[in-house]
């Protein structure tokens, strides 16, 4: 538990908490982006450069922007109002505590916590690439195919709507 870890942890938690608590949806997304960035830096602190940078590239650069677009396309002033009812808050808190408890229990009881100093993983990009290209080449290709199909499908749907509008 170094100081830098503390700072990053606080940053991440604060970001995600703000993402839940803020009233303006765009602010929420911006706070979430901060949370993502914090997580990315935690990865970096653990020496996982590739994962960290990918986290920034994908989550901050793409997912946050996507979320912003989604908000802009769907929401209007009416849906902005948060549920004010007390019971919803209480229910939310209970669920959150329950999930936390389960996770905490799992972590505490796992063998990983027994290790005082985890060995520094020495995964270079090259190793990741090798792993993806040799051992995990099938899953990778399937994922790629799936995403391509989704992409083409999205384009087709968009084209259909364009023609409808004409």
């Amino acid at each position: 538990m170094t100081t830098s870890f503390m700072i990053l942890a606080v940053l991440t938690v604060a970001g995600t908490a703000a993402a839940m608590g803020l009233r303006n949806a765009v602010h929420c997304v911006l706070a979430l982006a901060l949370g993502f960035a914090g997580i990315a830096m935690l990865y970096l602190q653990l020496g996982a450069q590739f994962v960290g940078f990918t986290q920034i590239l994908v989550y901050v650069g793409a997912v946050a922007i996507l979320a912003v677009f989604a908000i802009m396309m769907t929401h209007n002033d009416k849906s902005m109002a948060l549920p004010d009812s007390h019971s919803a808050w209480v229910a939310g808190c209970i669920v959150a505590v329950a999930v936390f408890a389960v996770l905490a229990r799992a972590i505490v009881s796992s063998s990983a916590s027994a290790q005082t100093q985890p060995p520094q993983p020495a995964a270079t990009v090259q190793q990741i690439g090798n792993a993806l290209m040799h051992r995990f080449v099938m899953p990778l290709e399937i994922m790629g195919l799936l995403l391509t199909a989704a992409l083409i499908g999205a384009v087709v749907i968009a084209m259909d709507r364009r023609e409808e509008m004409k």
Partner: protein
Amino acid sequence: MSTATLAAASLNLEPANESGMDQLLEIAMGPQHPSTHGVFRMNVVLDGERVVRLKPVFGYLHRNHEKIAENETYLGSMPYTDRLDYMCPLTNNWAYALAVEKLAGIQVPERAEYLRVITGELTRLQNHTCLIGFLMQDMGASGTPLMYAFRQREIILDLFEALTGARMMCNYMRFGGCRVDLPAGWLDQAKKVVAGFPRFLDEYESLLVSNEILMDRTQDVGVLSKELAISAGISGPMARASGVDYDIRKVDHYSIYDRFAFRVPLGSHGDVYDRFMIRLLEMRESVNILQQAMRDIPEGPIVDPKTKIRGFRPKPGEAYGRIEGPKGELGFYLVSDGSPNPYRYRVRPPSLINLTILEDLCLGRNVADIVVILGSIDIVMGEVDR
């Protein structure tokens, strides 16, 4: 429905208030906008970046020029005509002088006619170069073509200054002729300028004409059909770009244009590129006319000696005189009741009437196209709002 629209709608930024249009974005382009060529405003309703509706709003520069002229003597309106289309004062002077000459039946001496043709065609040159510069500026060409145009315009304005005493507010024509004769050496200087002009046009063309981005931005943008052009009273290069074969210099045989051999370029698509090209080609023809005029200019008086400067009172009646201005048909309609002031003084502003079809040209196009289309129409707000 594009993202920008929806985003704007979600921001609740004063959406268009008509029913069914609340998903659209209404923006006011102007009166303070870099490419409205003055204080002009377009209320544009956008679907994404596509124009759904466009309503021009005029009058920011309105000073009731016509009313001022009705309280002014005939001569007193002459300097005010400079300020109509301040890019080309000499053609404004000419059109007004022509109308008054028709009203009062004044003959213009031959040398004065030559002077008018020379100054008028020089005006056309500088107007067209600047217009192309402005058009490129609207297209985002960071000022380079505009600067070249202005460099060339400066030379022509120097000629104007040497002749009329002012660069822009020339106040040069008089009823029955022109105010002053050519100063010594002016003609040689002008010949040099005109001789150098084709070289400038060559440079301009190699910079612009074959540029792919320019062609992509202008071809098939803002297409104006021949029928609509005639019906909407579109005149000048803009009409000719739509294939309307109508040049008042050829049709009305006014002044001495019959003596010069020149051709009238015609477009076949009626888009922005054609308007741009027609102006380039017209400049070449103007250079032709200028060379002939400066070769043939005779000696003689420059003003009809019978006309008086003071106490000019035409007999009751009316007259409509028009010329082929650089921007289109520039006409003056005058009604005289025998007093020193015109009873009714009307300017037919080509800029304003050419704007009639702005919405038709812009509908369904992009925001970026609006500015290009507006730029290709060639307006000067001094004339539009009068």
